[in-house]
């Protein structure tokens, strides 16, 4: 029963939270999540969050956009209905490439930006309309919450974790049993 206890320690300053997290991690505590109204700079390496792979995805999305733009331009302007614009050679893709660069660029940016945003929302489960996952609505305003799970910290007892959290300068401590 005791193994699915979750602690929510609330702070009113991101630096206090960061120092607290540092101390807890040094003692061997696993911090499972931090909720904050804005990105807390430098918290990721402290609580051991893996580096994001969003950048790699964005690169792949960009490549998709570029490929699609060039394919589309080839089909529309060269293959299907060659158009004579300003006397430019209209039967050769390579000789007309220059005119397609701006379109390729725009499509790259469009795909990379939009697809990256959607991926970000999906990965964080924050698509508009989805139920909020944060434990306390104040974490969207001016409070910072650190989440500790007893199940991930088997070597400590409930009491020990609570005592350690109390030393880190919290303003509130909440405890929940999750199924």
């Amino acid at each position, binding site marked *: 029963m005791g193994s699915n206890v979750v602690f929510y320690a609330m702070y009113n300053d991101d630096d206090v939270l960061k120092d607290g997290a540092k101390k807890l991690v040094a003692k061997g505590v696993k911090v499972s999540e931090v909720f904050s109204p804005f990105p807390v*700079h*430098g918290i990721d390496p402290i609580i051991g969050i893996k580096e994001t792979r969003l*950048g790699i995805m964005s*690169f792949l999305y960009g490549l998709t956009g570029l490929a699609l733009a060039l394919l589309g331009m080839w089909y529309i302007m060269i293959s299907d209905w060659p158009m004579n614009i*300003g*006397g*430019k050679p209209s039967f050769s893709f390579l000789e007309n490439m*220059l*005119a397609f*660069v*701006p379109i390729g660029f725009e499509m790259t940016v469009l795909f990379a930006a939009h697809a990256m945003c959607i991926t970000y929302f999906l990965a964080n489960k924050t698509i508009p309309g989805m139920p909020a996952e944060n434990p306390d609505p104040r974490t969207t305003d001016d409070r910072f919450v650190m989440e500790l799970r007893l199940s991930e910290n088997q070597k400590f007892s409930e009491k020990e974790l609570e005592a350690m959290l109390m030393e880190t300068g919290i303003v509130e401590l909440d405890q929940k049993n999750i199924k």
Partner: protein
Amino acid sequence: MDYQVSNKAKIWTTILMVVGIVFTGIGIIAAMGDGNLGQKFMGNLLSNSFFFFSIAISAMFFLALQYATEAGWFVYIKRVIEAITGYLPVGMGLLLITFITLSFMNGAHIYMWMDPEVMKEGGSHYDELSSMKGAYLNQPFFWVRTLSYLAIYYIMWNGFMKRSVLQDENPADAIDIHFKNYRRGALFLVFFAVFSSTSSWDWLMSIDIHWFSTLFGWYVFAGSWTSAMVVIIMLLLYLKKLGYLPKVNESHIHDIGKWVFATSFLWAYLWFSQYMLIWYANIPEETTYYLMRVEHYKLLYFGMFVINFAFPMLILMSRDAKRHAGILTFVGLVILAGHWLDVWIMVMGGSMGPTASIGAMEIGMAVLFLGLFVRVVLVKLSQSPLVAKNHPFMDESLHHEI
């Protein structure tokens, strides 16, 4: 710990200069018979003195940019940037020697507008199109402009250097000096915004006398900015390898790596903008510039573009690459050579046209200038403490983290 020019560095820069002189000599002897030795030599002198001068002035632009935006991250490496601007007096001297020689040689077929036979009616090579530009492109006005650019650059550079040492010595005035740097930095940016454009028209664009492009100034400036960022990062990595500047962390390196990446894109963007608009409009008086380069420098010109754009883009795209000394040095060396080639084609494409090629003289003079540049920068670096003191943002720089 203050920096001392190591014996190894002294020997290597001396070797570079000696090799440069030998190759230049071979090049001169080889070009003795073909009648355009003067033009060839002056063209190389112009492209090299401009290229290395532009690195120094772009480093100063970068310094002024940090002052004007009140940036904090750069303070710990401020002296490295200042050392690169330390080439300015030498660079200006060489540029002046080049222009004076060109003036006495009536332009040496590089600046056609310096030749009275071209500009005056009844001259043996009289060209009406060129003579109509005589109101702007004439020797007295050229010298007024050139001297005012250089004088203002020099005075402002001198001020920055003086205040930098003054701030070290007077902790009480550090804040005042900081705000003075802030104002002077902004003022320099205003001057540089105009002068970087007009000076590249005067010194480089006027070589292709019939041709003009409003984008040319930005294009030249973007290239020299990239080169300056490359030189800054390579000098920083060199010092770090020798054990100086222990508090330069990965974030500093990463930030300058990003600058190399970003300025390369800026340069490629402007290169393409200029090229595509002229290609699309297809107006004969605009296409002359590209006709010459595409017909006679096809491999060098497009090769240079691909190298300067694709290398930084593909290799420096990932976060880890921008923090890796080996990758940065490799990309830096390649695109530094690429931008040197860019300037060389600007000068040679317009003056010698099809008869120019990369040979002993070109390599020799580039190596000679490189050796001189590195030597002057290192000597300048050793003249003041390696880390500035009393700058209000020093602490921020030491804890720079991205």
